[in-house]
């Protein structure tokens, strides 16, 4: 704030001084030059009239010669001062305008306004540094779930793009360098409601700096960083960065999961997927046979490594192996967009193909060429840019992976429902059949949209009635919560996935499981279940009905009131 005022004052000094001097000289001149009154007597203008005359002349208004007609000497002086004053005015106004348009000044004004807006935030928010592909996807998925985000990006165009974006929540954005602590502070790093910092810029050093700054200035919050190399990853972990996400590894793990555990893959897609998306059918990639990997950049290498771990021997197609390096196994030099290279790589006996270059046009071209050569192929496409979504839908690839949104979803889960992350980590150790069974259970409770996932704490704040009942020694089981508070014979369309009690985890807790205070349960299911269940959790009459099946006599008025409230609560 002060900076701007001082800057403005400093810049205004010279024009103001010029104005004062010009006015003083012109006024003084008018009082000194002899004039005549109406009768032709010698008359000198006094300061009052001189200042009045100069005031309107300087702004080129011109009320005429007052109070008496001027002599020629006065007119000469007025001419000189008029031109001088007009020039001075233009100079002063021009200076002020250039100050307003000055980049530094505007940046200062924007930053100040931004910082004030952040200070006034009254809802928990996440600070997202870097609004590239991943940042965009993350902000989108956060706001879809009514979580708040604040964005910093170094590119003013991206910040403007954010303002045009049609997001569910208001997202304040600052054009600034996230590596500078002052910008992080302005964006609310020390704000008590700041829940987490996500560093997603494409420069590792900046992400590292953001992580260090955040851990030093606000140690309690969650810090999630993107890192492209294992060195940086180690470095970040060394000072307690909560999660480090490597986009290439994450993508490769995802792909590997699709290969060796399709059920688990579908489960993950469903639970961590985007909002209000239709359910996808599970896909079953061929687990043995000849695979081709196009592109051996950072992505290609990660994918290649994972495929080899799965026991496959993929052939790599890479245009510039001298730059990217060569794999241990077979490789073909070429882009993969022409039939010749694909044929060299053995497309005719191949079962699967990964189009994983960093160019969407090339990937699409590879897929179309390969489909022409071998229509039976299982195709995994890498989509780099969100804007190409439509054409990737049009090309008949079995799996389309958009690394940015995979990572964005991953981070969103870490930020919003960390229990889901834990659940997926535990699920990794299960058989694929376990996952398939769970998927079919989830399908049974869903209609045709992806499930909602939410965490439900059993405490006084979020579950008043239940925690009261538990302290009085009543037994409330998980199954009781799953009953519909309107009709207890029916169950709510949701499934408890994970229960956290005293730091230990129970995967897929059974219905007979008695609850305890401070349990935390992860549910997945339809949103309506969440709303109905909060009725059981918070209202003791609803809880009583669910437990015993009898509605207490509460008198006519009370019953009416409760019915009205129940309808509102469920609406």
């Amino acid at each position, binding site marked *: 704030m*002060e900076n701007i005022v*001082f*800057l403005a*004052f*400093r*810049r*205004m*000094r010279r024009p*103001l*001084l010029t104005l*004062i*001097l010009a006015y*003083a000289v012109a*006024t*003084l001149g008018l*009082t000194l030059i002899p004039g005549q009154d109406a009768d032709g007597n010698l008359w000198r203008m*006094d*300061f*009052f009239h001189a200042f009045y005359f100069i005031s309107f002349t300087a702004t080129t208004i011109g009320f005429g010669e007052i109070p008496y007609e001027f002599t020629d000497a006065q007119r000469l002086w007025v001419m000189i001062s008029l031109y001088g004053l007009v020039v001075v005015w233009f100079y002063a106004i021009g200076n002020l305008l250039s100050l307003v348009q000055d980049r530094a000044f505007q940046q200062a004004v924007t930053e100040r306004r931004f910082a004030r807006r952040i200070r006034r935030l009254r809802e928990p928010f996440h600070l997202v540094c870097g609004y590239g592909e991943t940042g965009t996807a993350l902000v989108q998925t956060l706001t879809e779930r009514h979580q708040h985000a604040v964005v910093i990006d170094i590119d003013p165009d991206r910040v403007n793009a954010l303002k045009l974006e049609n997001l569910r929540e208001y997202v304040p954005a600052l054009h600034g360098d996230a590596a500078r602590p002052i910008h992080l502070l302005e964006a609310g790093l020390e704000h008590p409601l700041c829940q987490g910092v996500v560093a997603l810029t494409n420069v590792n050093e900046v992400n590292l700096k953001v992580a260090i700054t955040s851990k030093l200035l606000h140690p309690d919050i969650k810090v999630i960083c993107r890192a492209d190399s294992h060195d940086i990853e180690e470095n970040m972990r060394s000072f307690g960065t909560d999660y480090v996400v490597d986009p290439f590894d994450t993508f490769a793990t995802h792909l590997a999961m699709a290969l060796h555990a399709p059920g688990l893959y579908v489960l993950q897609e469903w639970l961590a997927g985007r909002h209000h998306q239709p359910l996808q059918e599970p896909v079953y990639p061929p687990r043995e046979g000849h695979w081709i990997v196009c592109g051996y950049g950072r992505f290609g290498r990660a994918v290649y490594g994972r495929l080899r771990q799965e026991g496959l021997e993929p052939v790599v197609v890479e245009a510039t192996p001298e730059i990217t390096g060569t794999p241990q196994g077979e490789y073909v030099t070429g882009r993969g967009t022409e039939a010749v290279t694909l044929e060299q790589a053995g497309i005719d006996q191949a079962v699967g193909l990964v189009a994983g270059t960093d160019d969407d046009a090339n990937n699409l071209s590879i897929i179309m060429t390969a489909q022409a050569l071998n229509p039976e192929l299982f195709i995994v496409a890498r989509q780099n840019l969100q804007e190409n979504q439509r054409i990737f839908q049009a090309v008949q690839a079995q799996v389309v992976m958009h690394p940015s949104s995979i990572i964005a979803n991953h981070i969103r889960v870490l930020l919003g429902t960390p229990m889901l992350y834990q659940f997926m980590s535990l699920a990794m150790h299960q058989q694929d059949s376990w996952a398939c069974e769970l998927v079919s259970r989830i399908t049974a409770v869903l209609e045709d949209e992806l499930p909602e996932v939410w965490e439900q704490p059993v405490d006084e704040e979020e579950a008043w009635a239940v925690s009261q009942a538990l302290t009085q020694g009543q037994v409330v089981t998980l199954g009781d919560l799953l009953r519909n508070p309107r009709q207890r014979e029916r169950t709510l369309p949701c499934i408890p996935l994970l229960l956290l009690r005293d730091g230990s985890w129970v995967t897929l807790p059974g219905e007979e499981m008695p609850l305890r205070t401070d349990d935390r349960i992860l549910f997945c299911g339809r949103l309506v279940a969440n709303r109905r269940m909060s009725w059981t959790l918070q209202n003791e009459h609803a809880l009583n009905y669910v437990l015993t099946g009898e509605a207490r006599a509460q008198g006519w008025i009370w019953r009416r009131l409760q019915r009205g409230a129940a309808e509102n609560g469920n609406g």
Partner: protein
Amino acid sequence: MNPEKVVFGFFIVLSLTLNFGFFVGEMDNPAHHHVYELFAVVVVNLIATVLKFGDRTQMGAVLLATSLVAVLQLLAAVLVWAWAEHIAGTGLTPVATASIVSLSGGAMLANVISVVLLVIETVMLRR
């Protein structure tokens, strides 16, 4: 030597000296207080005020405050003068002159504070 400081000091001292020149003389005698002197005092005080803009130090802030006080006092004096001379049409009566001069006296006090602060700052700088 910083030329900016020279100009700064010059105008602060000049506003005090001119103010003093206008102030001395019999309180209610218009012949002792010339209107051109008042004009010069106002102009120099305005310049001194603008020169103090944009100084971030504590001293700069106090200097700006005293200057603003002086300018306000002088503008009040000018208004009294314009009222007596042109609007009321009574001319510079002893009463009007006395109030103009006393207002400029107040401005002079503010200017004295400015100069004292300037001297203090200079002395501290030498240490």
